[in-house]
């Protein structure tokens, strides 16, 4: 492996660490699992860097993170049904560990949002994270998740509807029906 390949990897892929961690963190719902997954994903990404042919590295990397996440879950058979976190006191409110700047949103609202997201099925959760946090297009989400665009659309639509109801954001949710 030449120096230039590693330099290019450092320039293009290493700066995406926050994006990778954000996806892993929401997928795994556990900070330690997320860190293991990201480290594994970066090693895999580096080993397969030859298969990356330019373009936007983010969908490419996020696909690897996602696959590592699912493999990791299957491998360890860790099923975390609970949404109670040992790190509840800092994950959300810790300024240094989140880059979103909507300071107006109280941390209790953030916690409520995260809890609602955590309750979603994994395929709905990843659709939301890839779209709202990573800002991927439908086409990119389809590539990352290996699903047709139509499936991406319906998952996103259903996921948003569930979140809207869970958070009481829509009139329909307030009326208790849909």
């Amino acid at each position, binding site marked *: 492996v030449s120096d230039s390949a590693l330099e290019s990897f450092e320039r293009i892929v290493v700066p995406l660490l926050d994006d990778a961690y*954000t996806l892993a963190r929401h997928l795994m719902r556990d900070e330690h699992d997320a860190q293991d997954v990201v480290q594994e994903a970066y090693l895999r990404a580096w080993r397969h860097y030859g298969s990356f042919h330019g373009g936007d590295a983010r969908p490419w990397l996020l696909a690897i993170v996602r696959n590592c996440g699912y493999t990791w879950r299957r491998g360890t058979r860790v099923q975390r049904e609970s949404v109670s976190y040992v790190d509840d006191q800092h994950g959300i409110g810790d300024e240094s560990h*989140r880059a979103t700047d909507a300071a107006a949103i109280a941390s209790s609202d953030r916690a409520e949002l995260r809890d609602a997201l955590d309750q979603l099925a994994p395929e709905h959760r990843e659709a939301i994270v890839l779209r*709202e946090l990573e800002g991927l297009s439908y086409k990119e989400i389809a590539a990352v998740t290996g699903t047709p665009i139509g499936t991406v659309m319906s998952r996103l639509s259903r996921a948003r509807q569930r979140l809207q109801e869970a958070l009481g954001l829509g009139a329909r949710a307030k009326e208790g029906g849909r």
Partner: protein
Amino acid sequence: MNCAQTRELLNAYIDGELPPDEAMAVSEHLTTCAECSRIYEELLTTVRTLREGLTKYRAPDLLRARVRSALREEERPVVSSATPRVRRGVRMPWRALAAAAILVVASSGITFVATRERPSAEASASEEVLTSHIRSLMPAHLTDVASNDQHNVKPWFNGRLDFSPAVPRLEDQGFPLLGGRVDYVRERPVAVVVYGRRQHIINAFSWPAEGSDEPVQPQEARHGYNMLHWRSGGVEHWVTSDLNAAELRQFVGLLQSVR
């Protein structure tokens, strides 16, 4: 376009994923149908709430260090565990790492100032302190003596340094002692007392220094790290961490109050 068709497409409409003609048709329907318009507004509110309120995480320092270290090991199967060889012909030089860190920081919207001019003594000290901090995050480089007991850590420095650093116990205030190490800064051995704060690592450097007392001075945040400097009683102090500025300031306050 009727109501059912419109509602089917609302998500794609909000996401800007519709071809122009369909987007136009949805838009026209929304101006004429109050019910669809209300549903659209609700969905828009939901999407905005999610985009603003969901947590975008910043990768913790330890993960950053682990990834770098894993890449390096991948690159060079035999890695000396005794000393980090950062200045030699390593394929992932620290200069490049720093550049990567800058990119990461820039992409996460945190401001920093890269100093290009010839560094002053203080700037050079802060540079070396930061390098030491980052290096300490590599596996097995954080502490030479790992202990949460000040009565283990403090004596350990005896004989290794020509002065005795303060090793206060701050666990009750949420800063558990992790250990200590001797490092090399400004061409002399210095004491580094290591504390934790949740998943953050705090390195507290000290060494004897000439010069009058200086109050606590927050340094420019660099590469995502906060840094504070002060001098008192002939001892130079530097504290650095990826912990947020407010809590790091609180830590320094505690450190000073127990002296």
